[in-house]
């Protein structure tokens, strides 16, 4: 249970960072918090008490103690997606800094209404 709460709190912290931080890098870190939290959540969902990794490193392992492989696969996918987003976000920040000479999101408001 604590894993759930932990990962959910991680998401919340990420959201909080996105909400109140005005530094672009911190916002990106916040986004990463969110995705890490989600990934942890996914893994926690798949866990079975006293489970082992779902790898038949040799034949004859007890399949009943193995944890759910699907969340692990999903996490794998999600991590890559998060990494992609991160890369793109950083590229954006580089450009933003070049255009606005600032990393303060509150000053980057040329587009409105």
């Amino acid at each position, binding site marked *: 249970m604590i894993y759930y709460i932990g990962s959910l709190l991680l998401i919340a912290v990420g959201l909080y960072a996105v909400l109140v931080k005005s530094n672009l890098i911190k916002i990106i870190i916040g*986004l990463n918090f969110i995705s890490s939290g989600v990934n942890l959540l996914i893994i926690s969902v798949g866990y079975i008490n006293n489970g082992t990794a779902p790898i038949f490193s040799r034949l004859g392992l007890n399949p009943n103690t193995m944890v759910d492989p699907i969340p692990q696969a*999903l996490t794998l996918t999600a991590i890559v997606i998060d990494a992609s*987003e991160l890369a793109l976000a950083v590229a*954006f920040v580089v450009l933003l800094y070049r255009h606005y000479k600032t990393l303060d999101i509150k000053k980057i408001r040329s587009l409105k209404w």
Partner: protein
Amino acid sequence: MVGGAHPILLIAVPLFFVFLIVFFSSFFKGIVKYLPIIAFGINLIVIYQLIPEVLGKGMVISTTAGFKPPLAIDIVVDRLSLILAAIGSVLGFLVAIYNVSYIDEEPQERYYALFTLLVTGIIWMVVTGDIFNLFVAFEVTSIAAFGLVGFHRDQGAVEAGFKYLVMGSIGGGMLLVGIIMLYAATGTLNMVDLAQKSVHLTFGQKFLAYSMIFIGLGIEGALFPLNAWLPDAHPAAPSSVSAILSGIMTTAAIYALYRLTNLMFDYKQIYTILLFFGLLTLIFGEVSAYFQQDIKRMLAYSTIGQTGLFFFAFALDSANGFQGSIMQIINHSVSKALLFLVTGGMILRIGSRKIEDFAGLGRKMKFSSFFLAIGAFSLMGLPPFFGFWSKLKIIFAALQNPNFFMVASVVIILLMSVVEGAYFFKLLQNMYFGKPAENLQISEAPAGILISFTILGLILIFISVYPTPIINLTHQVANDLMSKSYINIALRLGGL
């Protein structure tokens, strides 16, 4: 290739071409710009082959990895998906032609790859039968879109792209949370399977999962108040991309919401909440559009408004509402894409996005102006254009049981249509009869642009004067949605 087409080709072929573009980009760059045309041309053939099968059986299922769902991901094309996939392919094809004349900025090969990927992702979102696969497609779409929004790399584009990215990422995260909640509850990811296994969940549980999914898809689908990125991002992107974003991407996200709502979250309460979202989106989009000076921004807000309209129609939760909603989706996709393509050509020529600078273009760019007018008319819902039929259907659906709230909603819809008319007529009037700037020397849009929007415009005219097949088709779709035949047919066809 048993039984004609295979729906997975809709995704695999463009992906193949995406990688082909990358492959060729290093040594055979000249061919790159034509590859998307071929890709979506093949897609159109596939769609063409799929049509009789889908219409006949109601659904075509394609499995992956040789396993039956829910073990493996399946691609499901029912009538609704087919409509959206067809729109996506057609738009992709036409915009690919458009690109040839439109994009002259470097890095072209990346643009074409991203563009192809964007459209592929949209089609993917529409045809997938697996909820996590939906998430992946969603991310393919949004990440391709992030890059494309920033394509011009100027101040506005970058800012819009970043905002879009932050909001889109939050949305993606929330969508994933929602999916995981469903997985935790059912242990499966296939939509049909989920729909069957999720029946034992309580309303509260479902609602919570739904709201997470709703946030994710709602951000992409431009539902108020989650749509703040849209009016920035759509204008900032190149017009060709705007056409795709406005025309089909938001629609695809909305489609996903429709599908999931219809399959798993079919509660009156949820629909009631969605009604409010639809109405708010409609009001805020249309009214904001009225105040815009920038034509693309205006069109972007108008997209929000249209989205609100068809979302409202969907939330009516009746066969007529579904039908109206899907008709409106078709209308919106075609017309709004047309508008963006045409304005893209005009902006290319006059070098400004301000509405007042469009004065006198009716004389200089006759074809462009004509199709702009057609598209605007259809969006406004003036007869005999297609938008009229769809709006008609929506209003009729809303007033099926005319209580006070419904009548008030219809009044709001009609008022918003007036607002829509107000800004579109302002534009048209300025364009046709405004006094052009001194010695305005411009010519008609380049050939590629002209061809693409002419074809799109002709499609719009065709469905306007002969709407019967689409009305019939959407009627069937609405019945499918009402009877939840998605589950039944999928079960019968061995989807599980």
